[in-house]
């Protein structure tokens, strides 16, 4: 069975990421809700995770901090729904764009010992969503600034 990840845009303001995992869902859920497990994968080999704090209950808060080459960033938010092994809904605020929170819904579905993960990221506007999806920047200054705008506005939605 394929583990292939799929990224789609169900509506103008959302991104849906899906992926299969060869493990039961209670284990996959743990990797999203236990700091020591999350910090092993969240960095994506792009930055050093400097802090992971989470209080996984409705109204509880979380904070992920990371350091790259010459920059630091922080993602914070609040849990809105917590259904153990099944579903997490949380807000997310990126330190680079505090005025643009996102809402992330993560769903864990198990079938035959495997887990189907859905991550739905809800943006505030189509423009911001499209900026987030824009990939591989050229070296040009104009491109850099388009991305700068995207970084500053909507990076809140990275996780």
């Amino acid at each position, binding site marked *: 069975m394929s583990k292939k*990840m799929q990224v789609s845009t169900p509506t103008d303001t959302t991104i849906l990421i899906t992926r299969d995992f060869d493990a039961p869902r209670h284990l996959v859920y743990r990797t999203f809700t236990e700091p020591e497990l999350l910090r092993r994968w969240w960095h994506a080999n792009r930055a050093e995770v400097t802090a992971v704090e989470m209080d996984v209950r409705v109204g509880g808060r979380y*904070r992920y901090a990371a350091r790259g080459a010459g920059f630091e960033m922080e993602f914070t938010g609040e849990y809105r729904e917590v259904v153990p092994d099944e579903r997490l809904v949380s807000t997310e605020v990126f330190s680079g764009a505090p005025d643009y929170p996102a809402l992330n819904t993560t769903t864990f579905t198990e079938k035959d010992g495997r887990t189907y993960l859905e991550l739905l990221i809800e943006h505030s506007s189509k423009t911001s969503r499209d900026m987030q999806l824009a990939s591989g920047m050229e070296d040009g200054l104009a491109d850099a600034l388009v991305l700068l705008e995207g970084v500053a506005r909507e990076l809140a939605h*990275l996780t």
Partner: protein
Amino acid sequence: MARAATTTDAFNAVAEPRRREILDALARGESTVNALVEQLQVAQPVVSKHLRVLREVGLVQVRDEGRQRIYRLDPGPLRAVFDWVKDYERLWAERFDLLDEVLEDLKRENQEQE
């Protein structure tokens, strides 16, 4: 738990909307403080304050030309940020590949306990 945004690096410096406007203006060409004041319709002390922050994090360079100080954008310090965010799909693909490894470890631990 949340800390106030700092301006100690380029990444945090660009979070301020007015500073992004200044960077955007400088992206179209180097400029003086007065020209920026005119273009952005913002008081000169405000523009100067933001330029100082942008210089401190290396996003703006300055040189003297006669009696004028000319400001220029230097996007170099943002490169590290760009590298982190570019290719959104790849970011998640890399995360999930790492997550596979974590899950293998967890499955092994579970088996040992059984």
